[in-house]
């Protein structure tokens, strides 16, 4: 039964390809992508198509290239071979295209990367004001809207250094949302947090998923993966080793490496 489900999911993918689905339904398309650090082939033959509204969780042992892969999607890392098309725009050396893509793709980092010299509100309004040319007042209203959504409007005039890790990460999510991104990337958003703070960040992310945001999330929070992901991707040694619905992935892993990994993290 479960296996059948998985197969049918695959079939749907194939069907879509056959139907020449319009480009507007594809959020991210990665085709035969390779990346090298010097001589070292960190990412090998990555193929991944993400549809709009899809929520994908990427996991794998450290050094497997999962962070590097999602950092390629907004060109924080450069790829050397293959194609990455985000929102219909191919990532090349064209700086203008890169900036266009970055405007549409929000990113949340492991270490938050908030700007410590700016208040929470300024962190959230900076990019809308300077990149989108939103009037200051409107940008502030919008920022407060998103700060309310991540449940910390009362911290708006503090500085990042005065907030707890969980609060900082929620600000980082609000900061990304203020650019009204069509895609959100999460690079281990809860790995640097105390156990008590992980939940508040995950709840924010679940809320986002429920609203239909396209999300790619590198995380080891398997509860989160089960709850919100459409697909789980397992990476090892720079390649995608296994890809499946969360139910199948956790209950019926097929690749030996996946089985080993799951047995290590699910005690």
């Amino acid at each position, binding site marked *: 039964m479960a296996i059948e489900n998985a197969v049918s999911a695959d079939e749907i993918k194939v069907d879509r390809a056959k139907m020449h689905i319009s480009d507007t339904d594809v959020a991210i398309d990665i085709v035969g992508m390779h990346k090298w650090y010097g001589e070292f082939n960190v990412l090998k033959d990555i193929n991944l198509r993400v549809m709009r509204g899809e929520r994908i969780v990427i996991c794998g042992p450290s050094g497997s290239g999962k962070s590097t892969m999602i950092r390629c999607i907004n060109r924080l890392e450069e790829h050397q071979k293959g194609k990455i098309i985000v929102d219909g725009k191919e990532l090349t050396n064209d700086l203008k295209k890169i900036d266009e893509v970055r405007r549409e793709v929000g990113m949340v980092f492991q270490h938050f990367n908030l700007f410590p*010299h700016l208040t929470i509100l300024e962190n959230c309004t900076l990019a809308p004001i300077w*990149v989108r040319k939103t009037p200051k007042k409107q940008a502030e209203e919008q920022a407060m809207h998103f700060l309310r959504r991540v449940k910390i409007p009362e911290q708006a005039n503090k500085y990042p250094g*005065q907030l707890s890790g969980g609060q900082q990460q929620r600000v980082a999510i609000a900061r990304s949302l203020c650019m009204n991104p069509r895609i959100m990337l999460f690079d281990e958003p809860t790995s640097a947090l105390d156990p008590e703070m992980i939940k508040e960040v995950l709840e924010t992310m679940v809320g986002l998923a429920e609203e239909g945001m396209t999300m790619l999330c590198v995380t080891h929070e398997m509860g989160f993966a089960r709850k919100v992901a459409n697909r789980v991707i397992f990476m090892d040694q720079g390649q995608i080793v296994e890809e499946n619905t969360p139910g199948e992935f956790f209950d019926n892993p097929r690749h030996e490496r996946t089985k080993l990994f799951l047995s290590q993290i699910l005690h």
Partner: protein
Amino acid sequence: MSQDIGYVRTEMALPQPAPLRERGPLAWMRKNLFANPFDSALTIVGLVIVAMILPPLFNWAIVNAQWTGTDRTFCATVAQGGIQPDGWSGACWAFVKAKFGQFMFGRYPLDERWRVILVAIMFVALLVPLLIPRVPRKGLNAVLFFLVLPVVSYFLLIGGVFGLPHVETPLWGGLLVTLTLSFVGIVVSLPVGILLALGRRSKMPVVKMLCVIFIETVRGVPLITVLFMASVMLPLFLPAGVSFDKFLRALIGVSLFASAYMAEVVRGGLQAIPKGQYEGADSLGLSYWQKMGLIVLPQALKLVIPGIVNTFIGMFKDTSLVYIISMFDLLGVVRQNFSDAAWASPQTPASGLVFAALVFWIFCFGMSRYSIFMERRLDTGHKR
């Protein structure tokens, strides 16, 4: 056997005041001055040194000092042909008083000195509100100070227009020269230094190479050499009849020099900014200049305020080296006046030098205190 090892706190402990021996002046002294025998010894030695130096200095500078007078006789002992008792030793402030105008303006014509004073008043009137964070309209203030004031000052000081007599720069001197050189040096070196630092960290090889060559060349040569070459050698290479102002050459030399040093200070700050800040800015779609101007530089410059002010202070004092091209800054004018026969006495040089030192110290100390104030003000809990 059945002993219960469980423990449950029924009441949370409340904070209590610190014990008496941790508070009050006595506790402070014990902690800071006499914590152990070595500390106590250091404290005592320090107090003895202060007690040995301060009273004689006080006597020389205040008690025995000669405050008024019209010539050297007031500052010389009877044996030296003066009016003071033999064995007298005190500062000759009368000399400083008599020469004060020269110390400030050099040989700037007496009738035209109001122009310098006017510039000084405008300078202070614009600088003070710029330095006080609470005063509004910083943008307008900065434009007036950094763009309008230099142009107005240029025409006021040089003259030759609007019926103002021309005052050529070799007549300038004293504090006027010191402040003009350092103001121009500071205003030019900070932006140029920032650009050089960014260039040196640029990914574009040609830009990077040019910046590295400039910085390393300028840093590798003593300022005195550059000034000397500019004054003596440059005219040899220029075609006959072409010459440009010696003071202008000094201005350019000092500014470029300070820029190279500033570039390295700023680069230190840039290197201290974590990669995550660049990535955070990139991920939001900020352009290179937005990223640098809004995110990286504000943090980097804040980190290197001590280094920047250090460079400013160094440059302020280095302006004295223009004596090598026969320009006279404050120290130069003071020294020049030692040879004035009307004031030659054993006390004259010391008095003049102490005065010059005091003026330099006031400006440098002011810069230093202001930088500390700014550091505290800009601290937003970056450190964790």
